[in-house]
């Protein structure tokens, strides 16, 4: 199960498991947003390289307009995946405070 939606404050909320079978759904959602900013991952259990690709493509698009994603509330496992992928160098990643 994977869900992606806008939260009350305009943040992108991801829930469940972002695997290769769900990556297109996430990409379509993010592509439809002109300037997504915060991505709340508090309820994101799992992400694979297909999900990383979605985030990377979106970040590269936002680079053209000076924007960028801020990834918040990721679990320890997902933060490890980000670090091993070098995403901590190209995304702002924090605890959401």
């Amino acid at each position, binding site marked *: 199960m994977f869900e992606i939606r806008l939260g009350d404050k305009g943040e992108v909320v991801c829930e469940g*498991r972002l*695997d*290769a*079978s769900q990556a297109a759904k996430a990409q379509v959602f993010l592509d439809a947003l002109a300037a997504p900013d915060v991505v709340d991952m508090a309820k994101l*259990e*799992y992400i*694979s*390289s*297909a999900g*990383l*690709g979605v985030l*990377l*493509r979106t*970040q*590269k698009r936002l*680079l053209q307009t000076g924007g960028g994603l801020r990834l918040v509330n990721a679990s*320890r*496992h997902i933060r490890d*995946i980000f670090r*091993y*992928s*070098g995403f901590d*160098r*190209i995304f702002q990643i924090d605890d959401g405070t």
Partner: protein
Amino acid sequence: MISARFPRSFDALDQIFEFTRRFYDAEGVPDEDRLVLDFCLEEIFTNCVKYNRGNPQEIELELDRSDDRVQARLTDFDVEPYDVTRAPQVDISLPLDQREPGGLGLQLIRRLVDELTYDYTNRQSRITVTKNVG
């Protein structure tokens, strides 16, 4: 040891994760190790799907636990060899404008598991990951 075969499609991931979940529950595999093993299996399985699309053969998954080690093996049938242990490295230090999606999966597997092995015999590719658990 348990095994099952799955259709060559991303849509089979749900079936695969249900299969692994039953194994993890039965073997008491900790949550953190489940995520790592599922990650590795997805990366290997989706590579089999992407790079052998026309192949009608299903892909076999075997799971085994011995003491504190879980071994997961994917066997792909009637395929050309590709040694995943020698896949090129992605330069993760590149700036955003030079990064491209793709290529991270196998690199992350090598970082996350204790052993990754590849065997190719009789046009069968066997990729095995071993993870020390809890």
